[in-house]
């Protein structure tokens, strides 16, 4: 298998397809994509439950907007999505090759 030998001798494991658990190695629970999917789905369920929880207690708040159902969840989600999208744009402006300062 000349191709395999080629990727193995490469110093960095940058090729996404060339890496992963080796054959015959112990298989972990997270190696199964189905299980990762389960975690992903349960996360959404948990989030929904947390919003529903807002209905069952008296919120003590300082600013009126915090009183909306699931406000903190909404705020967290939107913050993170905007953060990541903005950071992706930022990378276009400030991102340079790794050896930028060494040249």
């Amino acid at each position, binding site marked *: 298998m000349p191709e395999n030998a080629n990727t193995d001798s490469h110093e960095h494991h940058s090729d996404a397809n060339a890496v*992963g658990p080796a054959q015959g190695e112990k298989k972990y629970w997270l190696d199964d994509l189905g299980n990762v999917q389960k975690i992903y789905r349960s996360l959404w369920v948990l989030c929904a439950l947390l919003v529903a929880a807002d209905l069952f207690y008296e919120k003590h*708040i300082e600013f009126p907007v915090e009183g909306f159902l699931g406000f*903190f969840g909404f705020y*967290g989600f939107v913050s*993170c999505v905007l*953060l*990541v999208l903005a950071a992706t744009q930022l990378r276009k402006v400030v991102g340079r090759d790794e050896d930028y300062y060494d040249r």
Partner: protein
Amino acid sequence: MIDSFPPGWLLIFGGLLVPLFRGRVRSAYMLLLPALGFIQLLLMPEGELLQLSIFDYSLTPVRVDPLSLVFGYIFHIAAFLGMIFALRVKDTGQHVAAFIYAGSAIGAVFAGDLITLFVYWEIAAISSVFLIWARRSERSYRAGMRYLIFQIASGVLLLAGTLAHFYQTGSLAFDYLGINSLGGMLILIAFGIKCAFPLLHNWLEDAYPEATVTGTVFLSSFTTKMAVYALARGFPGTEQLIWIGAIMAAFPIFYAVIVNDLRRVLTYSMNNQLGFMVVGVGIGTELALNGAAAHAFADILFKGVLFMSMGAVLLRTGTVKGSELGGLYKSMPWTAAFCIVGAASISAFPLFSAFATKSMILSATAENHYAFVYFVLLFASAGVFHHSGIKIPYFAFFGHDSGIRCKEAPRNMLIAMGLAASLCIGIGVFPGVLYNVLPFPVDYEPYTVTHVITQLQLLFWSAVAFAWLNWVGLYPPELRSVNLDSDWLFRRFVPRMFGPVTRAFGGGWTRMLDQLGRRATATVQTVHRHHGPQGILERTWPTGSMALWVAILLAMILLLYYYYR
């Protein structure tokens, strides 16, 4: 006896003796020093314990009060944990440097006057740079130089500010200073450099990731928290700090998302956590100052665990680049578990430390009706979970399996991480213990239904945002890259712009400036002579030009001072 022996000296002078011991005796000795120092603190009465008069100046080298004690306690704990983590390091110089550094940081928080503070400030600056240089590479050498120049500049400003302050008030006491005088302003900038204020921040992100595996753990504990202490002492209730802190809390997280070196990600997130503390100092109420002190305490521990876990990864795999790592939970399950505890703590999950500490600052912001700042901090809280809480563990230990298989971290490192992680949980579960040592009486209950539910909402929806962005492929991949930050100004812009100008002035002018630079940074030069071939300094523009800038800065301060008279 114990009254007149300044805190920190045990570590500074005890640390100098480390080279005399070998093997197990050395290990025991290294752990004994911070333990004894901690006991010394417990036995110390409060008050101004040591006073000196030199000519007309009255100095107070040791002043013990609740604010200094809380920082004193955590600095000893940090030194103890750091030493466990570093036990197997063979490079004795690093141990000595770490002890002197930790000891001077401790000395600084018990300094009752500005001159004593300045002395410790400078010892901490100089001793700490050896933890960066100990990596012994060209890269770390240069980063250390840049770091040192910032640290020395901070010291110069502190001294200039002290003189101006003394001239104006006739007092050298380190108490409330305020920004309504030249001295106060200069001292604020000096503190601001060490606290990584916006645009003065970049030494932190630049240098810490270039230090050794164990060095970064020490660095993360002391310098910046010493600055938080100094701000809380000198500038509580300074409204400008609220805005500065809010900027610090928000901006670094954008970088943290795209930076590849995971230890550098942690420095950006540290900058963000410092922002919270600065906001707390700026608000200046009892709750806010308690929050700032408590959060500094908690931060040292969770940042400690996070830097330790990434240090262990660097030690075992030779890299901490997100683009190269992944799937390490198979090889380093304990390290991964401790990292997750640190991540949960910095993210302020209920039952973890920041839930009980950061929330004090947020509550103080809300109580004082800084609505905008409050929502910025809330954004920063979601963001910190996103990059420190998820990104760090995810890209190192989970994510795409990199195929790297290595040994678990050495036992001493696991013990250090385990202890620090336990303390993170301890503070989260029993916040009352920490609240008891805070500067002011605490009337605050973190575990209310509203706080727990809203915090969980914020965090889990942030987590789901990360998962969703990953799922649909919108999350930016980890790339081998560097990101320009304000360091670009002095690493690229200044040399490129002024290089030709200085050359055009001819050799004589350059030599004269060079002479100036050399005098201003005599210490730097001495250190340098012992450290590297002279050629490096000549070749590397950043170091040469920065030495020059320090000289110019010094001259400007002197001018300012004379003008002011």
